[in-house]
């Protein structure tokens, strides 16, 4: 048995399951297991549960129930949103505009859809906080031949909130639909009413993995470029797991209800980390907007530190954090977000607090971090630089 209490600080896109989600899963796997499109009582019961889940999510994001479609993953939701709109608006143009700090799934889809239509994928630059340059993106969106604009609500790696309303306003004026990736913000921030399509990722707020959703305002032109069926309006053929849908919706309602408390708690812990680390660890760069940010994400880079080795040192103390450093990625490339910001990419530590992160756990992380960094610097021979 492991005697060290674990401190889990890597909840981005993979948060511990909220108890409400667990309860909903248990109940619905008993009561709502049936395929929801048949005529018998078991199927109708599953259909009612699914409709309720759809309605609950619609209410939270300010959409109509019939505008919400369940997807098998957040990546699939983003991919189909980009591909469907790009295909549907191909007579207008094939260009897709994003920021340079959107998540890889969105950038990949934009690249794919633009290339397929012989268009361009335009990436708007960001400042040192990772906030997109509004005028540049607005001008790109308003240029001729744009099928779709897409961007994140907030950056899941460094926490910075994007100027979504201003980009939406520019897109609206140019009659270009805006896809908003709320995968890192939904459940953590109030949602702006500034989107034509919106995606959410339950695993990020404490719902189950294996499900996500795409909301599409009525009137958005789209055409599937995949073989489709009647499921989820044709957006996601093959249907949806009813228990996962209900657990996603119930946990979203719960985290929104709990947000006044969890928000203050997590903001105080993030503030503590942002304040403490530069004082206790020499040569650290703390990333992201200090104020206009997600309540639970904080990232910093330590000069002369091997990110993978640092994660290993922290793991010895029972502490789990994330990293955007090249040595911790499968690709061997550093985080494109840190790179676009002009930030130090090595020695990167990403803390994403789960909703019930304990103060004691964060204090333990802060207590061991200086020692862990020093050890890794000594191992690599970076003393006295």
């Amino acid at each position, binding site marked *: 048995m492991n005697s060290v209490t674990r401190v889990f600080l890597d909840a981005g896109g993979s948060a511990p399951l909220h108890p409400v989600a667990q309860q909903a899963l248990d109940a619905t796997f008993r009561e709502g297991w049936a395929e929801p499109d048949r005529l018998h009582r078991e199927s109708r019961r599953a259909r009612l549960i699914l409709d309720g889940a759809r309605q609950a999510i619609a209410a939270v994001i300010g959409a109509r129930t019939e505008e919400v479609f369940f997807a098998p993953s957040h990546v699939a939701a983003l991919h189909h949103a980009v591909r469907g709109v790009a295909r549907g608006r191909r007579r207008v143009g094939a260009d897709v505009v994003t920021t340079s700090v959107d998540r890889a799934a969105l950038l990949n889809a934009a690249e794919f859809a633009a290339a397929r239509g012989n268009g361009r994928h335009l990436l708007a630059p960001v400042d040192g906080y990772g906030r997109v340059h509004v005028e540049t993106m607005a001008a790109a969106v308003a240029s001729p031949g744009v099928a779709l604009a897409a961007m994140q609500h907030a950056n899941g790696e460094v926490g910075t909130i994007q100027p979504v309303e201003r980009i939406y306003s520019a897109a609206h004026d140019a009659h270009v639909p805006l896809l908003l990736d709320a995968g890192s913000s939904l459940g953590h921030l109030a949602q702006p009413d500034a989107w034509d399509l919106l995606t959410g990722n339950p695993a990020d707020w404490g719902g189950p993995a294996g499900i996500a959703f795409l909301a599409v305002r009525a009137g958005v032109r789209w055409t599937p470029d995949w073989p489709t069926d009647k499921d989820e309006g044709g957006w996601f053929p093959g249907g949806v797991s009813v228990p996962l849908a209900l657990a996603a919706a119930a946990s979203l309602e719960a985290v929104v209800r709990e947000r006044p408390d969890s928000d203050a708690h997590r903001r105080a812990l993030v503030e503590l980390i942002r304040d403490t680390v530069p004082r206790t660890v020499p040569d650290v760069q703390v990333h992201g907007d200090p104020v206009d940010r997600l309540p639970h994400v904080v990232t910093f880079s330590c000069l002369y530190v091997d990110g993978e080795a640092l994660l290993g040192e922290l793991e010895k103390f029972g502490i789990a954090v994330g990293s955007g450093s090249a*040595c911790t990625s499968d690709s061997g490339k*550093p985080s494109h977000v840190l790179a676009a910001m002009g930030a130090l*990419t090595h020695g990167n530590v990403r803390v994403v607090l789960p909703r019930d992160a304990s103060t004691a756990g964060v204090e333990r992380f802060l207590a061991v971090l200086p020692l862990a960094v020093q050890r890794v610097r000594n191992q690599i*021979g970076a003393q*006295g630089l």
Partner: protein
Amino acid sequence: MSDAHRPVIRGAVVDARGLNCPLPVIRLAAAAKDAGAHAILTVVATDPAARYDVPAWARLRGHEVLAIDQDGDELTITVRLGELPPVTGIS
């Protein structure tokens, strides 16, 4: 290309080819420690992170990036050192 053929402006050359992050920056910082204020140093690296981390290091340390040149996998960055700051608390 041997050092003798490099342009004079490159100054001392730190060969960090084949080294992964953060070693290219560490080798460059070690060379900077031995060089004087305003000295010109060049680092050659193949690590993709060096493209971002060498300029970020220069900003943090008050050095100036003079040139960045990518030739295939090989990245060459030339910096001019600023006033060398006192060594900070890494021990």
